[in-house]
């Protein structure tokens, strides 16, 4: 169906390929102290990138994301983070993020937090992407959220005189987006849940696109309305099939809910969590080695085929 790249990126015959290994991409674009975003709402969360950040022992990161999820719990446990900017820090469908809770409740390790609601985070990324200093929204009336976060301010409408909430732009150093497919220039196509990936990518100084499948540019050009992130804002393309596991990639594999449930027990005990990281993150050199530790995974979670019909771009 799609013209997948089977060989090295060079096989696609594209001159200025941005294709890097995950190791190279993280080494080049994620530095100590950076503001880092790995976005994806339940869908397409790039665990592979998070693991490589842990392996490369980045420190003092400001991690931003609507829903920190297990990957940020792991980054917090691995002491990569100085600060978390977020709107919902839980294990979706399961319960708590225990490493996050230990950090916030007991300071082990210490973690600064800056908290919004989802709408507030969406608005911060939207402002950053549009190069506006703030974004107005009708929100937070009667709540304690602006009390605990003084960065939520008010702006007055010049037409009606109404007072609205305002949040400041968020412009990360780097955003990592997982996509079903992209070409070697980073023109990335995503379907299923889109989250805030487009806004986060446009708001960032650097963008890494990680894909299930590297495709020739002709695949992208055959359906341009499907492109969510244009190559012109992308710095690196990493080809990492199953790189979103245990989250999911529509059309490729289902969410590994068993692992989300299991994480509750793993993360509850710091020693168990540490040995998880030792084995599955520090103990492997890359995602393909990680996959060898999960026997049967690809058959258990592989998506069935439910292709939609194409549409006519002729004129």
């Amino acid at each position: 169906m799609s013209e997948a790249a089977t060989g090295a990126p060079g096989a696609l015959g594209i001159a200025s390929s941005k294709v890097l290994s995950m190791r190279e991409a993280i080494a080049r674009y994620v530095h100590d102290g950076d503001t880092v975003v790995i976005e994806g709402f339940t869908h397409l969360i790039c665990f592979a990138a998070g693991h490589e950040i842990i392996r490369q022992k980045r420190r003092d990161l400001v991690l931003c994301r609507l829903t920190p999820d297990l990957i940020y719990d792991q980054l917090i446990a691995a002491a990569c983070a100085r600060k978390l900017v977020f709107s919902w820090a839980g294990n979706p469908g399961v319960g708590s993020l225990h490493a996050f809770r230990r950090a916030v409740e007991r300071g082990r390790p210490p973690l600064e937090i800056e908290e919004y609601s989802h709408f507030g985070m969406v608005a911060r990324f939207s402002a950053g992407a549009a190069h506006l200093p703030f974004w107005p929204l009708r929100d937070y009336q009667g709540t304690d959220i602006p009390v605990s976060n003084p960065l939520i301010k008010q702006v007055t409408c010049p037409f009606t005189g109404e007072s609205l909430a305002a949040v400041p732009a968020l412009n990360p150093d780097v955003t990592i987006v997982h996509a079903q497919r992209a070409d070697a220039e980073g023109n990335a196509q995503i379907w299923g849940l889109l989250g805030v990936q487009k806004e986060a990518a446009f708001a960032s100084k650097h963008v890494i696109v990680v894909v299930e499948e590297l495709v020739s540019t002709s695949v992208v050009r055959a359906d341009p309305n499907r492109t969510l992130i244009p190559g012109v804002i992308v710095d690196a393309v990493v080809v990492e099939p199953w790189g979103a596991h245990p989250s999911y990639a529509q059309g490729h594999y289902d969410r590994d809910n068993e692992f989300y449930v299991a994480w509750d027990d793993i993360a509850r005990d710091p020693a168990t969590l540490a040995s998880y990281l030792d084995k599955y993150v520090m103990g492997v050199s890359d995602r393909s080695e990680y996959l060898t530790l999960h026997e049967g995974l690809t058959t258990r979670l592989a998506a069935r085929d439910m292709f939609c019909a194409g549409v006519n771009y002729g004129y």
Partner: protein
Amino acid sequence: MTVVAARELRDGEIVFVGIGLPNLACNLARATHAPGLVLIYESGAIGAIPERLPVSIGDPSLVTGSLMVTGMADVFQLFLQGGRIEVGFLGGAQIDKYGNINTTVVGDYEKPKVRLPGSGGAAEIAIHARRTVIISRLSTRAFPESVDYITSPGNRSKGKSRKEWGMPGAGPVKVITDRGVLCASDVDGEMELAALYPGVALEDVTSRVGWALRARESLEMVAPPDAEELRLLREVLDPGKLYLKGS
């Protein structure tokens, strides 16, 4: 609770669905009296018809076969702030007498006893949905007179009514619990006992609420789930009892 919550929904309404019991209630309503219900999830799935019980609000089964999938900026700006959502379901660790909800911290914000996940989309659902329905099991811990932290505003918060705050939605009109149903007073927005489940005594409810709960003069009796509702829940919608643990 799930059955009672499902009955709150009218056919054709646009519902902002949370995970867990609200999701189950919405799908029960779709399968019974409200086939035209439009389910909207904050993840961006509009008009979802999940083939399996979704394990999260971002489950792939919400995407496949839905009417529209869009980005979260659209969900919050166009649907929610845009005033398109008729009902929102909310739950929380603490609910107070005005329906203010806390899903952020137990204890002090800076030094919390228990750190909860936070707002997610709950703050804006509480502000913008034309009405909200709260679902929670009764206990004095869950129903204090005032919450430790207001994540989602109720009918009166920080000394001001919704109208004074300029909030568009009507706020929490009902709190559905496992023993009775509280309804917001038209006069001051305080939650009052309006209905009891069969076999539940007034004291069973008042003793589990952290404030002097007012009871309406004539308390209604909640009709028990009928056979079809129970069959759908147990055999079709949640056969694995993912969410139905005695509710």
